[in-house]
């Protein structure tokens, strides 16, 4: 069970047309090397699930600029003008989802739940075409679970088995996405020996992690 691999080996899991989840919030807590490697190899036609589309020159924002994304499921595209342009030109499909719904959809995908029952989006365009449910006289939207073929995460400290600790606000979507993809690849700022992370403070248990890549930080 040797999980530490080269970027080259890690990239072999990512094929054109796949759905990828990328951890991060406006690029904070996102894997740099892995994203650059996808761009270098021009792996395209991807569906991206991420909180936002970051900035044009940063991290997964560059995937959009390089036209490698055919569809995005996200809560915000305002910091990357290229997203808006490609949406209006029809080059990229964009599904805008409230942030709290998005993270619960990913959690549901990882936790074996059939969907999310949320009040968020009621009475707005978010409810268009979606199933509603009434519970004790109150209306809610039913949002479907989200999963990906591959999740690309960024960890601050990762042990050889794959246990992850994140740093400060770089945690964000990472631990949730870790549960919701067939293959989970983490880019580690630091790789430590197994046993060096206190078992009480592991933020993503190693069983969710398939591949560890040493990051450039």
């Amino acid at each position: 069970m040797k999980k530490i691999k080269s970027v080259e080996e890690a990239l072999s899991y990512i094929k054109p047309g796949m759905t990828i989840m990328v951890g991060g919030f406006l690029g904070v807590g996102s894997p740099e090397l892995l994203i650059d490697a996808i761009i270098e190899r021009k792996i395209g036609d991807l569906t991206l699930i991420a909180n936002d589309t970051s900035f044009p020159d940063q991290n997964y924002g560059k995937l959009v600029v390089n036209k490698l994304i055919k569809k995005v499921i996200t809560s915000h595209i305002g910091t990357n003008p290229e997203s808006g342009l490609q949406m209006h030109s029809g080059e990229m499909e964009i599904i805008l989802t409230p942030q709290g719904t998005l993270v619960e959809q990913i959690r549901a995908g990882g936790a074996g739940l059939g969907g999310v029952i949320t009040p968020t989006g009621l009475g707005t365009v978010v409810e268009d075409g979606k199933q509603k449910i009434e519970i004790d006289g109150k209306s809610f939207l039913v949002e479907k679970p989200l999963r990906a073929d591959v999740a690309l995460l960024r960890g601050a400290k990762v042990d050889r088995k794959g246990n992850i600790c994140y740093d400060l606000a770089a945690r964000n979507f990472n631990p949730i996405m870790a549960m919701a993809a067939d293959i989970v690849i983490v880019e580690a700022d630091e790789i430590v020996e197994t046993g060096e992370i206190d078992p009480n403070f592991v933020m993503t248990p190693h069983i969710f992690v398939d591949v560890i890549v040493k990051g450039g930080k």
Partner: protein
Amino acid sequence: MDSNKVKEIIAKRVAKEFKDGNLVNLGIGLPTLVANYIPKDVEVTLQSENGFIGMGTAPLPGQENPNLVNAGSQPVTINEGAAFFDSSISFSIIRGGHLDFTVLGALQVDEKGNLANWMIPGKKVPGMGGAMDLVTGAKKVIVAMTHTAKGSIKIMKECTLPLTAKAQVDMIVTEMGVMVVTDKGLLLKEKNPLYSIEEIQAQTEAILIIAEDLKEMEI
């Protein structure tokens, strides 16, 4: 009025709403300024939806930490007793009614408490980010904004832009006054002494109900 003065009036007034022990989320832009006016003897915890509570002021130049930013990607600091968590917990806090206040801007807000602040069809579609959850989940929703957008009216009888949430706004604070959403419509509770009621109404599509004990805002 000077635009900085306008922002100051609004931010200062919003800050008076908070009580000791409150948990508050301040939106990007004008609402962020509210933090500067919270009285020293009122302990307010600020939440940042990218995953922490206990947000502090901006760091000194050179002391920025790339992993310590607010939801608008600006470097911040944390106060003693801060705590970090993942986005699912962050939005459990937001949607679960644990936030006492969310303060955000608006493109439009109406007399029923409807809010539109996330898109202008055909023009600008940034996305809703966390706004829909914030407005749906917070105990009290305060819209903090300039009364008009360069003269064009924002406080409507009924919003014409796509909604962020339906009937969730509790209070609107502008440089002209403080309005509360009631069953009967918008109640003007405080006004800026520089404006007459008629002047404020002229910049407002919704018909303002004037509070019997109408007060003057501190300016």
